[in-house]
């Protein structure tokens, strides 16, 4: 397996973005790798590329099934602002992870995989088993919703 397909720090970050919780992310990451080590010892490692990410994704979705599910409400969407980059810089990584993990799937998977900056869109379509139209919609909507959240957060902060 090439180092890119086995980029373990990125695999951990993916779990963290999917779950938004340090302990759960660690659990899923460790379980995925333990299982992979057992399969490697038995010579039964899958041949597909990025299977570790695919496995971790299913474990994350499974783990979050038990959690409280977000109510389906209309989330605000704003156009991306020129100052968005500076707004994002003021965030903590954990805040962003919590925001992404609260998104419904497949948007959550799409955002997590895309913002890892590890895969091209073809690879994301493969790992997340999505079509281009769905991935495009998930990302475009995600950006606009994140912008709305950033705007709300900053307007709230400036009022205080």
């Amino acid at each position, binding site marked *: 397996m090439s180092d890119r397909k086995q980029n373990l720090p990125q695999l951990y970050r993916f779990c963290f*973005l999917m779950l938004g919780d340090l302990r759960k992310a660690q659990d899923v990451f460790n379980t995925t790798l333990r299982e992979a080590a057992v399969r490697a010892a038995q010579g039964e*490692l899958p041949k597909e590329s990025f299977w570790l990410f695919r496995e971790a994704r299913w474990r994350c979705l499974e783990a979050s099934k038990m959690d409280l599910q977000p109510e389906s409400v209309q989330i605000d969407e704003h156009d991306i602002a020129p100052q968005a*980059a500076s707004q994002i*810089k003021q965030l903590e990584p954990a805040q962003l*992870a919590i925001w992404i993990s609260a998104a419904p799937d497949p948007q959550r998977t799409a955002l997590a995989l895309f*913002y890892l900056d590890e895969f091209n*869109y073809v690879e994301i379509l493969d790992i997340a088993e999505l079509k*281009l139209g769905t*991935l495009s919609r998930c990302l475009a909507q995600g950006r606009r919703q994140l*912008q709305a959240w950033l705007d709300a957060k900053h307007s709230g902060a400036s009022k205080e």
Partner: protein
Amino acid sequence: MRTLRLLRRRRALLNCAPISHDRLADRPMRAAVSRENGSDEFVNQQNFDRAVAELIRLVPIPPESAEWFLDKEAIRAPRWTWRKIVLNPAVLAISIAVVVIAGVFAFHLLGRLDDFPGSATARKLLTVAGSTRSVMLDPVSAEAGTLSDLFFMKHGLEHYDVPEEFADFQTIGCRVFDDDESQRIAQIWVGEKHMQFFLFPAERDTKTGAVLTFPGWRYVRQEGWVGAVKQQNGVCFMAVLKGREKDLEPYLSGPKE
């Protein structure tokens, strides 16, 4: 309609435009990005994406999970070595099968190398020689070379002549019989080393009926018996004894193969 679909696809690709330029996956993506490069909307999107990606790169890795990074080999598929490949049951089974097939092929090929017209009949007669007892033959005490007259006069067998190399040997008995292909076979038993002679029709071309000839003496072997075959005038003569080729060699003259 087609233009609309193309525009929609380009929009979809732009929404998935990579954050790092080295992740431009294919030509449609490269085309979409280069067409849109510089537009305010796309620049905003790229800055936004880059900022999010940079923030995610700051996600700290807990030391417990970082331990896995030191042991990447644990989740790597084991490397194939020559020893492993050779000992793989499938490879082993295929190799054995190939060796067996090659062995059978070589055996048949070597067998064929000794073949000559009439060799099949000669081999069958070696089996006959092995199972013949002297009592089964009519007792005849004469020089082997004189029996060709007997075969012609009594059985109508023309050119059933014993070659001069064996013509002086004293006979014990002889007989004429039909083999399983209804060919007339003459069998002679001589005192010298309990040798037997066989005379049988030479093989003919199935289409033209012409006699298939071969030069000099040829050997055939079967179950400890050896025969030296010579063809002349459309009849094959075979001298047979239990032993090896070197036991027959002193009796033969002319080219041996």
